[in-house]
């Protein structure tokens, strides 16, 4: 009988890894990349294919991220020390788990990681995910690159990692709001309309008053605009009207008889603007979309039916806006420090 043989594949993989790192072009270096993803990266995986020369610090959940930032040892990580220079956050981290947005929030709140460049990683921005991306942009200081797990976005992320390494080598801060060539650039959208003298962020506009938060919660629960508007008015009085007067004016009294229309009017042409945007704000670049929609005379079909559009908007985005984490964001805005040269 032939002799038994033991083959240690781990040693071969380690040798491969060393060879890859040694094979970097002159002036290049591998960096530590914090990857928060609930799935391991397999052979044909996105990270192994596009970022092979970098070290992957793999975290499975937001809880693991918190443990990592607290300095606790995670058994699946390679040997310390760790110096992450880029974070890649999967948007969805499993059903019932805290998602990539909350991971980003934690990074932005931590003194050591608040300036860490981040990329939102996802397979696509469909349905309400585009609003989540807008929220992510706000958390990231106004903009965030979004990379899909595709062969087209992979090289862009690789180039991005290279540029970050160069900036760090030159002791320069990487501007978080900087667009990454080849990747979706999700920007925070500003609201220029209504009674606001200065532009406010869309998220702040949607959640700035208690009655609005109640409205989204009720829409998420019952998906009924009439009931949600009624509950919002019942719990918060006359909303924005008559806050400084005991007795409402007759005109206001008449308006108040129709809760649904009243709430729709309070939101203004927001839903119309969103419809015109096709629900894809990341393609519009900033706040121009909302100004254009508000002043546009060429869309009469949208002008007379604010309630219908608000219902469509709220049905689609109510569950996101009703999320306790999202509702708490305007109360605790995260803003990175102004970009400056490191001392």
């Amino acid at each position, binding site marked *: 009988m032939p002799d038994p043989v033991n083959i240690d594949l*781990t040693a071969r993989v380690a040798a491969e890894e060393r060879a890859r790192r040694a094979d970097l072009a002159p002036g290049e270096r591998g960096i530590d990349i914090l990857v928060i993803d609930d799935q391991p990266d397999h052979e044909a995986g996105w990270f192994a294919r596009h970022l092979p020369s970098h070290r992957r610090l793999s975290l*499975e*959940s937001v809880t693991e991220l918190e443990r990592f930032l607290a300095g606790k040892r995670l058994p699946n990580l390679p040997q310390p020390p760790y110096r992450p220079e880029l974070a890649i956050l999967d948007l969805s981290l499993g059903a019932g788990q805290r998602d990539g947005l909350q991971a980003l929030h934690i990074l932005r709140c931590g003194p050591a990681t608040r300036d860490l460049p981040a990329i939102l990683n996802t397979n696509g921005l469909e349905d309400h995910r585009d609003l989540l991306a807008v929220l992510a942009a706000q958390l990231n200081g106004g903009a965030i690159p979004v990379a899909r797990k595709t062969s087209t976005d992979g090289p862009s992320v690789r180039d991005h990692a290279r540029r970050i390494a160069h900036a760090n080598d030159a002791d320069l801060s990487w501007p978080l709001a900087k667009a990454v060539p080849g990747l979706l650039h999700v920007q925070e959208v500003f609201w220029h309309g209504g009674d606001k003298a200065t532009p406010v962020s869309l998220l702040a506009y949607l959640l700035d008053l208690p009655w609005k938060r109640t409205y989204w919660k009720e829409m998420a629960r019952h998906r009924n605009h009439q009931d949600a508007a009624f509950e919002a008015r019942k719990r918060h009085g006359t909303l924005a009207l008559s806050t400084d007067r005991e007795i409402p004016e007759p005109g206001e009294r008449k308006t108040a008889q129709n809760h649904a229309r009243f709430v729709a009017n309070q939101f203004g042409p927001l839903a119309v603007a969103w419809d015109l945007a096709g629900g894809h704000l990341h393609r519009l670049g900033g706040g121009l979309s909302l100004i254009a929609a508000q002043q546009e005379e060429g869309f009469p079909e949208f002008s007379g039916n604010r309630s219908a559009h608000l219902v469509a908007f709220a049905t689609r985005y109510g569950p996101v806006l009703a999320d306790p984490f999202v509702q708490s964001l305007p109360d605790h805005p995260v803003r990175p420090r102004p970009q400056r040269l490191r001392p």
Partner: protein
Amino acid sequence: MSAHVVWELEPGPRWMRRVRLFIGPIAAVVVSALLWPASPTTPARFVAVAGPAMVMAGSWRLIAQIASQVKRFDEAREQTTELAHRIDSRLVHSTLKNPSRAIIDELALIPDPDLREGVRRLCYGIGGFAQSLALGRTRDLRSAEEVLQALLSYNPDWSARYGASVTHDLEPEDLTHRDAGIVFMAVSDLVTNAALRSATQLEIALTSAPTADGSMVKLRVLCRCGARIGEVVPTSSLMGLARLVHAENGTMTIDDAGDGSHVFQLTWPSSSRPRTRAAAAPKESINA
């Protein structure tokens, strides 16, 4: 009465459910104690005793009725959920599983090996999804047994021809997403390769040993195919698995006994401490 309904629907602490049985008797005793001194005649005393007794009996009857109704609602809900799962499962079976079965039979026509493996895994994932729906699970495939069953749902003859079995397994609920992902990829890859080599014996053991900061999970696959392990080339799926566990600070070895059997062993650290599964799950099939 509303309190009884609320307690039945949202039971709360166990002591509260016990205490409510005594609310009626206590109320009856209190009422009797109040009425008795003011009831000098026999009819009045009869009222003073019978009235509270009726209150007491009524409260117990009310509790029993509410509990019975809630139980019936629960049963109806479970039946409806099961029906919905069955309908969803049939829908997945007809729209996804059957086409994926056709694809998996023609995998050899896909020239690119990475794409071929990706399509194979996708098909197995669809099989697992259909199985999860049929069994009413609300999570992905986790344990070795669940992954093996998904594979066997495409290849039911493997079990008989190759004796594929799981000898040790871990509780699926205890495994993390990362552990489950590794188990899925390793089991689906090793079992498929073993079957393609016409293995006569295939045993899978998934175990764990506690460590200071979690546990060390070990997946051991015994394959008896009569051949020796040849040179493991860098593009092989075995090297792919080795890279997978290495990225999670794990190891992979192959022990070739020289008698036509070999053991693939993958170990990796886990942040959880999964419990050992008491017995292998019954082989449930959804090939209807």
